[in-house]
């Protein structure tokens, strides 16, 4: 009995160690499962991308649906983008003017606003607005089509749903979002002219001449290229989230929400990469 006493004294400590070991094991398993589901999601995104690219170049392109989507994405977003564009230019001008006045560089205001809008603010803010409006719309529409078996109905009537629903939407977003961005840039510069005229008197022609004197083709090119990527990303993320939505009605909301969140995040990350590449190429 005397020999066993030290071992008995150790028992409570052993129990504590065992408890911690079990907890550690459970946490490890949970982490592994999380990593597993993350990798599965990455693989699913990749497969969906491959299917979309494959169907983009297949025969029987759904041209009328593509035109309908261009109308939905482009024309129906005009009011929102118009308001956003004008306010963007107006606010940027009102905020920058006092600083430039202090430095005696107020004549540089039109050029500065134009370059800021064309290179960065126009593409990013418009793309974020589009991620909210267009991305959520796609996520909710395709999600509800999934829940109400419309995608299955399309499949059994010998129509490829990826070709009809996804390819048309991604291509329409890739084409229309850069156009919306250019439109927002133009209205932003118009808003800036309005902003300048709140405390001054500059003619429309003079303002635009000064604004575009400092803007070069190399300001437009990277902005247009990244806008195309923003459009493709917003379209793809919206379609992916909607198409892979679960079966319940709750999943429609989840799909719309995650389309906006992931779409916006993709825009920000893509912008960071685009800026780095542009900087490296000294554009």
């Amino acid at each position, binding site marked *: 009995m005397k020999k066993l006493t030290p071992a008995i004294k150790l028992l409570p400590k052993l129990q504590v160690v065992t408890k911690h070991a079990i907890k550690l094991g459970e946490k490890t398993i949970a982490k592994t499962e999380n990593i597993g589901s993350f990798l599965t999601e990455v693989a699913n995104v990749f497969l969906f991308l491959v299917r979309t690219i494959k169907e983009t170049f297949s025969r029987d392109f759904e041209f009328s649906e593509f035109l309908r989507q261009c109308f939905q994405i482009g024309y129906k977003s005009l009011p929102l983008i118009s308001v956003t564009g004008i306010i963007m230019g107006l606010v940027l001008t009102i905020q920058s003017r006092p600083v430039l006045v202090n430095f005696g560089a107020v004549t540089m205001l039109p050029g500065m606003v134009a370059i800021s809008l064309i290179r960065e603010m126009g593409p990013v803010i418009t793309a974020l607005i589009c991620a909210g409006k267009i991305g959520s719309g796609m996520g909710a529409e395709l999600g509800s*089509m999934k829940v*109400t078996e419309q995608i299955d109905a399309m*499949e059994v009537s010998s*129509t490829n749903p990826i070709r009809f629903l996804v390819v048309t939407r991604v291509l329409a977003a890739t084409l229309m979002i850069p156009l919306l961005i250019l439109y927002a840039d133009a209205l932003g510069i118009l808003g800036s002219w309005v902003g300048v005229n709140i405390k001054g008197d500059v003619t429309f022609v003079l303002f635009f001449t000064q604004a575009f004197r400092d803007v070069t083709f190399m300001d437009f090119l990277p902005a247009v290229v990244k806008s195309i990527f923003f459009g493709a990303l917003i379209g793809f993320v919206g379609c992916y989230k909607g198409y892979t939505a679960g079966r319940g009605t709750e999943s429609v909301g989840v799909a719309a929400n995650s389309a906006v969140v992931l779409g916006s995040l993709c825009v920000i990350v893509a912008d960071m990469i685009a800026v780095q590449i542009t900087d490296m190429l000294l554009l």
Partner: protein
Amino acid sequence: MNTSQTKTINNDSFETITDESVIGINNLKKSFGKQEVLKNVSLRLFKGENLVVLGKSGSGKSVLIKCIVRLLEPDSGTINVFGEDVSALNREGLGSLRKKIGFLFQSGALYDSMTVQQNLEFPLRRIKKNLTQKEIDEKVKEVLEHVGLSGALDKMPSQLSGGMRKRISLARTIVVDPGIMLYDEPTTGLDPVTSDEISSLINDVQLKYKTSSIIITHDIACARMTANRVIMVLDGEVYQDGTLDQFEKSTDSLIKSFLK
């Protein structure tokens, strides 16, 4: 009330049934995770017959017909449709086979963004590509008249009642003249009168378009009106196979409780 009338219709349709099997399913198994939905299902659908698959909710009835058109991939077993092994078909082959099969979804599955006319034209334009616009219009008009909704051409799905949606959905399915019809709970969520109308339409489709059908339901009134043969699925397995009369005369307590 409708049983006697229906039995007359069933007797008519019995004459069109042949021994030729259009669907043959052998030892079909399908699981979702650890849940075994179909354990070992084997059945035959004969040409011209209406086969009703009865069973409780969650017994795997819908999964069974979704496996037939490969909306779901079975884990094991074989499915032969018109003599072709469905699992062995490539994408083109599967597309060709699906053109011969009509699928009426439980929810109707009408395309929300399209009018009734566009909904009906959608499969027609893709499956029968050589039709002219005039022929398409005539075909759409014909099927709409058949389901009794010729006036609904320009309506959106959101403007239709539940029964109307089911009828339009049926019209969209038969517009391409399928050889086989798969009905997934055709009368669920409808009032008894509309349910009877849909059941009558199923019989009309069988006679007019010479279709062979699998009707998934737990609605006994619908089964009584449409069935030439009945299969009862229980816990993912075929529990009983026979005519409706055999089911009605059965002393099995489970079958009795289902037919109450």
